[in-house]
């Protein structure tokens, strides 16, 4: 091998620079959000996290209704998407013949390729009237948003869980089968426990998506900053309030509060995605050890 010439040093350092820029960029986003949300931080401190009043006239900004709406709509989405997504993943992994499995896998991924705004369009003109017929007084609301979100995040759970299942060592499964376990029992007693943290990772990843999802939710949630416990009632999410009010906010405090909402959202998604990645890495490592 040739010794390291100046070309090699230059090449390595240039690519290193670009590589590091990704790290710097991520930090820069956090910094910009932080820097541009000083006013509300000085005025409200952390109390804005649990204050419920959102009143632009009195310049009182509490974001609890948005945090509530974001979390509840995301959890609703998970309640629907987790069983459905895992069902798809198990079907693809255990039952589907390879050809059909590939096609269905591809189609499931296509669900993730549909833009958020198109989901919103379908939501407004198809789902909302259906919900109204089903007895929701407004049609729009928390549950409607949850349903739309669940379809949007389902492919993440299905696709990643399926990949995780594939990492389960064959030897483990075979030893369970040789003890007379049915395929379902193998799945329940071996595959799922082994891949548990990875599946959990995929759920967290999907949760991260749901928390930050903007357009589709904005179009069907009803945009009402109030905490209501009925799922048929309208709500509001952090991403939606930014989309609706960012260009329109009149005072500096108002704008900076919205940026601060962005900062909170950024922080939450970093934590959720951080957990997701950790769990997925962990199961991948275990598979290497066993195999």
């Amino acid at each position, binding site marked *: 091998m*040739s010794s390291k010439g100046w070309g090699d040093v230059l090449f390595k350092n240039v690519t290193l620079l670009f590589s590091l820029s990704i790290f710097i*960029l991520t930090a820069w986003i956090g910094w910009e959000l932080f820097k541009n949300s000083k006013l509300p931080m000085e005025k409200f401190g952390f109390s804005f996290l649990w204050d419920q009043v959102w009143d632009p006239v009195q310049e009182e900004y509490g974001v609890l209704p948005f945090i509530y709406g974001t979390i509840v709509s995301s959890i609703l989405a998970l309640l629907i998407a987790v069983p459905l997504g895992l069902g798809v993943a*198990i079907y693809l992994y255990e039952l589907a013949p390879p050809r059909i499995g590939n096609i269905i896998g591809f189609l499931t991924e296509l669900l993730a390729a549909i833009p958020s705004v198109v989901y919103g369009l379908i939501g407004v003109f198809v789902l909302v009237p259906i919900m109204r017929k089903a007895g929701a007084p407004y049609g729009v609301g928390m549950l409607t948003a949850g349903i739309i979100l669940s379809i949007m995040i389902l492919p993440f759970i299905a696709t990643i869980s399926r990949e995780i299942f594939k990492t389960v060592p064959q030897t483990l499964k075979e030893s369970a089968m040789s003890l007379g376990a049915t395929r379902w029992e193998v799945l329940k007693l071996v595959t799922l426990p082994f891949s548990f943290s990875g599946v959990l990772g995929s759920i967290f990843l999907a949760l991260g998506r749901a928390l930050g999802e903007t357009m589709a939710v904005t179009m069907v949630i009803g945009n009402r900053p109030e905490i209501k416990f009925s799922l048929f009632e309208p709500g509001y999410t952090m991403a939606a309030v930014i989309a609706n009010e960012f260009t329109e906010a009149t005072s500096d405090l108002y704008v900076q509060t919205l940026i601060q909402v962005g900062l909170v959202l950024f922080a939450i998604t970093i934590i959720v995605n951080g957990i997701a990645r950790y769990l997925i890495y962990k199961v991948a490592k275990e598979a290497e050890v066993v195999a």
Partner: protein
Amino acid sequence: MSAQTLAAPSYYEIDLPHYRKRQAVNWAAFLLTGVCAALTISILFFILGYLVYHGFSSLNWDFFTKLPKPVGELGGGMANAIVGTFKLLGLATLVGVPVGFLGGVYLSEYGHNKIGFMVRYAADILNGVPSIVMGIFAYTVVVLPMGHFSALAGGFALGVMMIPIAVRSTEEFLRVVPHSVREAGFALGLPEWKVISFIVIPTAAKGLITGILLDLARVAGETAPLLFTAFGNRFWANGWMEPIASLPVMIYTYAIAPYDDWHRQSWAAALVLMMLVFITSLTARILLRERR
């Protein structure tokens, strides 16, 4: 099987009702997963079918050639938004691909260290940053300093969103280039950087393009980061410094408006956008299959 040949008493004393129950659970459970799969696929087909049905009947020549009409007047089209979307994607490619590509080269060729781990983690985090937050970021670092909304700001926002996938796909596709290919290069006495640039990267070219195409397909439909960066424009935008119309933003503004004709155009735009996304991802998949 060996268990049978052992002729152990347990084999003959099998608890038949219990066994049947286990079998039933087995089949019921798997039937349920099949239902899940069928349901998921029918949701997809329903959405696509609805989109094609409403979108196709709404498409006409004007849609592709005309500018939007004043509010409430019938007709007009989205020619400027279609071109706008392509311009924004072009800009996004210029911003996102060089960073993602060179960053990915580092990760694949030198990144088996702490820095590599850190960057990979940062890319994964960046991938999860909500698109609306990217919009705020682009607003504070491009729109405010420039003093106005622009195509550039929108392209920047989309470009940043492209980086994480570009970097990870580049890394993956360079990784799978066989070691023997690299060694052949070294055997010729080439320095490492030449081996990477002229042997490894060209070998992986198809994969790399696939990655970029999938990446483009992903950001093509993004709306939230454009709301306060690219903004909107009723006319043709000159160059890159003016606000610009895009399909996703048009779908949004037309969908929430009360005009039936705008709803019609919203469906048409959604269909065009979907086709753009599908054709891009399909091209990517075909490229990938050829490679294999």
